[in-house]
């Protein structure tokens, strides 16, 4: 009987060890990078990162802000570019830890209001004002550390609208936007909580529309018709040709995969995550590195038709007007 008990214990321990080891060892990473630019920016950058939260409200709704930045920011010789992050509906930076830390590891300061209704973009602009104040506060870790000539925005779902709205209402302060899963205008409640067509068509800056092929209900590549902007292609086509623009869909990614850490974990089904954040790390980071840090090699990856982006295995529905 003792032997049997021991055998059962050994089996249980072995099974537990197996359970712990298998996800890391046997997991096949979805949307792995292929080209050198995607591979470079898919990996974390050189900086260790720190996350902090404002002790006071940073926006007009009374929300605090989360800030992700290189840990050694005080000892760096240069000011760092700033990325304003806009959360999807009902979300905060807590839902995007891997993506936001990844950006900080590449030398961006990332500020994210904890607003859960960011579509208008006003609280995103509030977070910019908060960081401008931090830059002039000698007691702040961001005192004279931010390069306000290189400010970008990015956001997810409703936050994609918020990031774009922030750029178009920033009178040129925000230079570029990356939208993740920008919803059809069908999904806007109220309508102006989305990016409105006149706002987009009158805008300036640059924009990279990113979606997933498994998000066909909310942010599909193409649409059936109508006058609303109900697809990534419609958003892209409505973007003025005077703006630098690109669009691509990550294969198999659904609406919430950017919330992965980096996979979806055993509880991924609770947040409707399927593949995880993996595929989103490379080109979106490269776009920001090009636009805000001047990495021309990263920019060349988006060259219309011939750039590396157009042969990447993990992407489809790609188009750009990058010369």
């Amino acid at each position, binding site marked *: 009987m003792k032997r*049997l008990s021991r*055998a*059962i214990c050994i089996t249980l321990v072995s099974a537990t060890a197996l359970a712990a080891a298998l996800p890391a060892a046997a997991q096949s990473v979805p949307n792995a990078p292929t080209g050198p630019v995607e591979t470079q920016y898919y990996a974390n950058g050189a900086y260790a990162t720190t996350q902090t939260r404002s002790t006071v409200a940073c926006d007009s709704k009374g929300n605090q802000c989360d800030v992700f930045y290189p840990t050694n920011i005080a000892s760096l010789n240069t000011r760092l570019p700033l990325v304003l992050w806009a959360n999807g509906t009902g979300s905060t930076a807590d839902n995007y830890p891997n993506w936001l830390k990844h950006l900080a590891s590449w030398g961006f300061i990332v500020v994210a209001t904890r607003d859960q209704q960011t579509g208008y973009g006003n609280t995103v602009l509030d977070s910019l004002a908060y960081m401008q104040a931090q830059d002039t506060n000698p007691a702040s870790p961001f005192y004279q550390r931010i390069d306000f000539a290189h400010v970008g925005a990015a956001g997810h779902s409703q936050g994609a609208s918020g990031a774009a709205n922030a750029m178009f209402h920033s009178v040129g302060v925000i230079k570029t936007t990356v939208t993740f899963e920008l919803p059809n205008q069908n999904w806007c*409640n109220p309508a102006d909580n989305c990016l409105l067509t006149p706002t987009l068509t009158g805008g300036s800056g640059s924009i990279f529309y990113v979606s997933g092929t498994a998000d066909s*209900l*909310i942010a599909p590549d193409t*649409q*059936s018709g109508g006058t609303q902007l109900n697809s990534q292609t419609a958003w892209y086509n409505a973007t003025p040709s005077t703006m630098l623009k690109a669009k691509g869909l990550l294969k198999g990614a659904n609406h919430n995969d950017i919330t992965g850490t980096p996979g979806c974990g055993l509880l991924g089904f609770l947040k409707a995550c399927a593949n995880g954040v993996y595929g989103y790390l490379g080109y979106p980071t490269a776009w920001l590195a090009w636009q805000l840090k001047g990495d021309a090699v990263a920019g060349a990856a988006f060259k219309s038709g011939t750039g590396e982006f157009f042969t990447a295995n993990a992407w489809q529905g790609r188009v750009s007007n990058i010369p």
Partner: protein
Amino acid sequence: MARISLIVAFLILAAVAAGAFFAWPRSAPRAPDAGAVVIQPLAPREAAPVPTPVPSPSPTRSAIEAAILDSMADPRAELRDVVTRRDAPQIACGEKRTSRDPVFRRFVWLGHLKMLATDDGSQDFGNILAVCREGQAVP
């Protein structure tokens, strides 16, 4: 000998169970448009003009209706004919009107994504509406 056989059988069973657990596909990514149902374009449902909506909080309002109303951030918004999908209770469909748009229009609510789509009379909304049917793929 019998004990040894029993232990070996148990070990095999445990290994098979562990393997099956980790091999089980989780939310396998779907191909573009998987589960989409092409339906005929639905004519915009023009409800009769109604008076300006007034708040009508109901003590029996379901949690899902409360979540939908919260997402609209409009204290004057109203819902009617709300039906949740029995096989996917996070999805609800019905009609809504708001202070800015005081005509009842069909909506689709994806509770797990906190997303609310409104009927604009387009075929795209028709495609979205298909998710209200039981058995359809859940986004």
